[in-house]
């Protein structure tokens, strides 16, 4: 059985040109989408691997405009989401309304904001589909809140911790419960790096989100080979043996 797969690719790591090549290489695999990571100076929900990607991208002078410029020309057969911490969105130089208009024009399907919890959503007024997070400790009342929002999917944080490769998959039962409660597609991220984890998640939820593993491969591979390597790893994770 084949279900959903979303890759997290940090924009501008090691440079924007390489990011574009990686994104193009993921065409034709039938994946659900890619979260494009906007670099931030203080990525508090991320582990060391993704922190370095943010740092390098910022040192390269990558900013939201350069990322959107690259993405706007991109032809891909999967959905694109933007993952950004809150401050770069709300302090976008031309104003958040202009940014949101731009995101719509480009066809971005949703925003993933790791430091914007459900309870603060109404206080920041972002008129764009926001992907809600659910964690193993999320309260019942917040699940109710999610039932009322419209979003492309729900991001399930699979463990207590920051992003990074792990082997296990705790909280499968909770995942199952959440899946039954919500009508939206449930995608599971944080620590997913093995084919076996992907298979287990696919049994109870709609898809996986893989980040740190791919970012590590990007950091360890030469620019020339990186797109092919990332594609190869994604194929392995989704069990595509073609």
């Amino acid at each position, binding site marked *: 059985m084949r279900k959903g797969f979303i890759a997290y690719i940090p924009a501008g790591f090691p440079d924007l040109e390489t990011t574009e090549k990686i994104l193009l290489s993921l065409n034709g695999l039938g994946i659900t989408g890619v979260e494009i990571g906007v670099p*931030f100076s203080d990525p508090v929900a991320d*582990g060391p691997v993704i922190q370095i990607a943010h740092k390098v991208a*910022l040192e390269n002078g990558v900013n939201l405009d350069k990322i959107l410029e690259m993405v706007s020309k991109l032809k891909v057969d999967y959905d694109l989401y933007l993952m950004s911490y809150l*401050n770069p969105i709300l*302090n976008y130089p031309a104003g958040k309304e202009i940014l949101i208009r731009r995101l719509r024009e480009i066809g971005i399907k949703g925003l993933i904001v790791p430091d914007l919890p459900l309870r603060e959503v109404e*206080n920041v007024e972002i008129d764009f589909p926001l992907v809600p997070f*659910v*964690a193993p400790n999320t*309260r019942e009342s917040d699940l109710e809140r999610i039932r009322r929002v419209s979003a492309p999917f729900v991001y399930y944080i699979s463990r*207590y911790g920051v992003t990074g490769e792990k082997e296990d998959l705790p909280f499968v039962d909770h995942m199952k419960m959440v899946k039954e409660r919500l009508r939206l597609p449930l995608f599971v991220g944080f620590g997913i790096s093995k084919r076996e984890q992907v298979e287990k998640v696919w049994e109870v939820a709609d898809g996986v989100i893989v980040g740190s593993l791919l970012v590590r491969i990007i950091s360890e591979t030469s620019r020339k080979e990186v797109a092919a390597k990332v594609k190869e790893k994604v194929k392995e994770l989704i069990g595509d043996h073609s």
Partner: protein
Amino acid sequence: MKGYFGPYGGQYVPEILMPALEELEKAYEEVSRDEAFWAEYRKLLEDYAGRPTPLYFAKRLSEKYGAKIYLKREDLLHTGAHKINNAIGQVLLALRMGKRRVIAETGAGQHGVATATAAALFGLECVVYMGEEDMNRQRPNVERMRLLGAKVVPVSSGSKTLKDAINEALRDWITNLPTTYYVLGSVVGPHPYPTIVRDFQKIIGEETKHQILEKEGRLPDYVIACVGGGSNAAGMFYTFIDSGVKLVGVEAGGKGLETGEHAASLLRGKVGYLHGSKTYVLQDEWGQVRTTHSVSAGLDYSGVGPEHAYWKETGKVFYDAVTDEEALDAFLELSRYEGIIPALESAHALAYLRKIEDLDGKIVVVNLSGRGDKDLASVLSHPRVRERIS
């Protein structure tokens, strides 16, 4: 709105932290009404930390400035700064919540030492995150924390200072939620921290008010405190808000506000989101948080407590900045005129005395938030000081 000071504050943290913040809020609400908790807190501050601290009339300094200058001597507290007030309060709260492991961030090392001290007092495991840059310039405090049994974890990400130490402490907390209490050291971070820390520090202002009324029979004209994250200032000001006293918060002007190398978030920052709070943040045009500069590690922070943002906006407190050099001059001045070596942080508040134009005959209270032993190495290596000591 709950969790906000006017439009500032809130809980802008990863979803996974929300239940922990709710648990903390609930626990704090419970102890707020529990007289036994506050009795224990006050008793420890008296018997163990050395409260009340004196409100000292600085005679020679007063003569020099033609005013009546009083120093609130938080520098005389155990561990050498006001930070112990909050550390003891929060460790007591951690015990109430059944947590046996506490973590903390530290800039100058004073909050780290205070937390390590309170943890040792109750036999708790303690881990302190500290920027590598700060570890270098505050070496004695690193050794102190280790002696007290705490583990000091160097933080090498970002600017390697307080802001990055807070990031790392938050990451630890996210990973170890069920066992761990995060002892935040300033009036920053997500709700309820800015309120909790201010409440554990407001004893500074309450004592000061009582003491000045006893000595002078009236409230002072000015109360001055330095502002990094802003805990000593919040603790000092809270009681005096709307009382007619002119309250002045002094930020770190670094090499001068015009150079961009400073840590004056309220004066030169823009409203943004950092460490769970909507507040003033020093940032670039793309919303990236800027690195800061100050001779004082404890003020070297890109954000500021949300309640200060509110006090600034409403005009309840006036904020200004002094440079590294002005602070160093004040550091030497207090040492020579009063025989008190102040922390570089507190020296920023003292330096503001020279900036008040109508000082003549006024009563001024300066919060001497900490003592300067920890700063000797960095002060003595500064050319401005070297040339003036024999």
